[in-house]
């Protein structure tokens, strides 16, 4: 099957999925109410299920949005709806200051995700506020504050690989951009379905164990709870998280225990990526892990399977790329035809309007 044909097929499948998902989640592209007066009142709404398991009725299509985290900003940009953002949070502002989303440079800031300025949000009078689903203040609390102003609140995270497509589908439905969303999902599904199919054939005993360390030394992520999505990203990439039994989202791991569990691979997450001119910093981080005395005899170090990975491909809304990079690192022989960086490049160019640049792993995965 040619790549183009495969892509078209995926778009069709994604469209069907999208439509069925809308039907399941009680999507009610509501009726237009005609009144006896001359002024017709358009009252189109849609009911969506957010990631906090709430059913929320929002205007359809949503035309004005306040984002309380930078993940929805990126997804809105990718779906071509960044111009519908009328208010942003501090995290999005920080991204703008870094050089992303120049079109939002003059958009008002309405506080942070932890401390939204409800008065400022009410003044902007958006159709919907999109916030995180499980970090306080929770969507229900924000909705309570904004209820007098008739502003809907939807909790969508965009950082968990297991619900990512459902969340994007929900977003696309609210925006009335079902076709664009289907195309967008198909773009990722092509690679992710391939990964799922191939790693599905790997026996549990043959799967590689991965110790993923955050930017803080020995800080890692528990795989048993809702978490930040990194353990889920490892599992989707065909790996086994080193701490699947820990429910803590983030914790300081005992260095002795890490050595004792003897991971096959060590991946050190690091900020920076798109704006890095060379790999000097990532190389230094890699060298520091390789030099840890307690890991000297570990499989990861002895077999040179230690990587520095940018959070630009493994953090926040970019966790959708994580499984691609992880699968390529863990099973290069299975994924010779997968080039995560070219997928990322296309994403930058086609969806974010960015030029290709940056450093994302050390050592480079295509060496």
């Amino acid at each position, binding site marked *: 099957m040619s790549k183009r044909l495969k892509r078209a097929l995926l778009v069709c499948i994604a469209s069907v999925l999208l439509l069925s998902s809308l039907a399941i989640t009680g999507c009610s592209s509501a009726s237009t109410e005609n009144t006896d007066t001359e002024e017709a009142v358009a009252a189109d709404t849609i009911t969506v299920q957010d990631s906090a398991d709430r059913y929320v009725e929002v205007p359809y299509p949503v035309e004005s949005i306040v984002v309380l985290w930078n993940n929805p900003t990126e997804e809105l940009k990718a779906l071509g709806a960044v111009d519908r953002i009328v208010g942003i949070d501090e995290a999005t502002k920080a991204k703008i200051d870094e050089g992303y989303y120049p079109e939002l440079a003059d958009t008002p800031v309405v506080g942070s995700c932890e401390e939204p300025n409800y008065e400022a949000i009410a003044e902007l009078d958006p159709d919907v506020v999109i916030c995180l689903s499980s970090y306080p203040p929770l969507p229900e609390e924000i909705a309570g504050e904004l209820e007098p102003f008739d502003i809907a609140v939807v909790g969508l995270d965009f950082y968990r690989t297991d619900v990512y497509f459902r969340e994007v589908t929900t977003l696309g439905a609210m925006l009335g951009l079902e076709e664009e969303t289907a195309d967008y999902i198909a773009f990722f599904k092509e690679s992710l379905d391939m990964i799922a199919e191939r790693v599905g054939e790997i026996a549990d005993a043959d799967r590689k164990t991965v110790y993923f360390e955050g930017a803080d030394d020995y800080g890692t992520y528990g795989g048993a709870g809702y978490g930040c999505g990194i353990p889920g990203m490892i599992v989707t990439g065909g790996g086994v998280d080193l701490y699947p039994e820990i429910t803590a989202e983030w914790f*300081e791991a005992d260095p*002795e225990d890490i050595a004792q569990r003897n991971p096959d691979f060590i991946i050190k997450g690091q900020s920076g990526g798109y704006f890095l001119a060379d790999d000097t910093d990532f190389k230094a981080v890699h060298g520091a892990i390789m030099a840890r005395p307690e890991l000297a005899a570990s499989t990861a170090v002895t077999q040179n399977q230690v990587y520095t990975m940018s959070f630009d491909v493994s953090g926040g809304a970019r966790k959708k790329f994580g499984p691609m990079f992880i699968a390529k690192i863990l099973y290069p022989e299975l994924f010779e035809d997968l080039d995560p960086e070219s997928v990322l490049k296309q994403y930058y160019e086609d969806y974010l309007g960015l030029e290709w640049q940056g450093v994302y792993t050390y050592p480079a995965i295509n060496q």
Partner: protein
Amino acid sequence: MLAGMTATSTEQSVRDQYSRSIARRLLIVSAGIVVLMALAVVALCIGSAELSAGGVIHALATRLVPSIGAPAFDESVVWELRLPRIVMAIIGGAGLAVSGAQMQGITKNPLVSPFTVGISSAAAFGASVAIMFGLRFVGAGTFAIIGNAFLFAMVCALLVFGLASLRGTSPETLILAGIALSYLFSALTSIIHFFASEEDLMAMIHWTFGTLTGVKWPEIAIVAAVMVVCVPILVKYSWDINAMALGGDDAARSLGVDATRVRIVSLLLSALITATIISFTGIIGFVCLVSPHIARYLIGGDHRFLLPASCIVGAIVMVASDVVGRTIISPIILPIGIVTSLVGVPLFLYLLLTRRQDYWG
């Protein structure tokens, strides 16, 4: 003659009483050292890696006599993971406690510690600034966090000293200037937290928890060197602080004690010790406040004995806290800044409730 004999006998009795008191205190200090050593041995044998006591001894000896040949893994665990954190716990605990005892002595206030005068808030601000500006990479970045934390802690100490000296460097002005700066640096740190990214915020908060994980021998050497220089000077002031505590500044002055000088030098050296330790470990606040109190319960307020006793209590609390922190919910390490309170408070409350005499003063 009888009166003379009675006076001599009373003098002898006082001397005997004094000698017994000194002997008792020396005994307590010695017992503390034994307890600390025993605890250190236990700490060395406990951990996630399954090493027997024999294996630990084997690994210890291998570094000294390489021909013995313990497994490389065991040697790394003992020499690069457990021993550094135990030694840092001992030196760091001793340093924080001696700083606390000295600060309480010069301000004659049981609620004061180097942290009360803003050292920890300033260090947290310095570390947060370094993290905020992306200085978290190894090499230069690691030292940027340590250096910035140290720099701001010392800037705070100098500001406290400068502000207090405008009003005669009295205990009250030291404390109030310190509290004001503490709030200022806390507010500045909160502003940085507010604007920080998710990853940066996590790193900043983790730094404030305090940890002994990842401590390296060169860092221990730096802390030890600062202690070797500063602690003898603080101990040298013991008589002076005793005089200031018993009779106030005026009485001390009549005995030839320059109270202002003692206060300034003690403040700056205590700040230097604390800043050096916490710039490497993050904030570990409880030890320097409560260890001197525990020591005072055990040994009294004589600074000649209080300082060494505080060192030992601080070291014991830190080593015990570290053992609890890395074993209680293993493989997760509970930050030592949290555990010191969990371990130290019960001990402190026990002494508070079982000792009858007023220990302060």
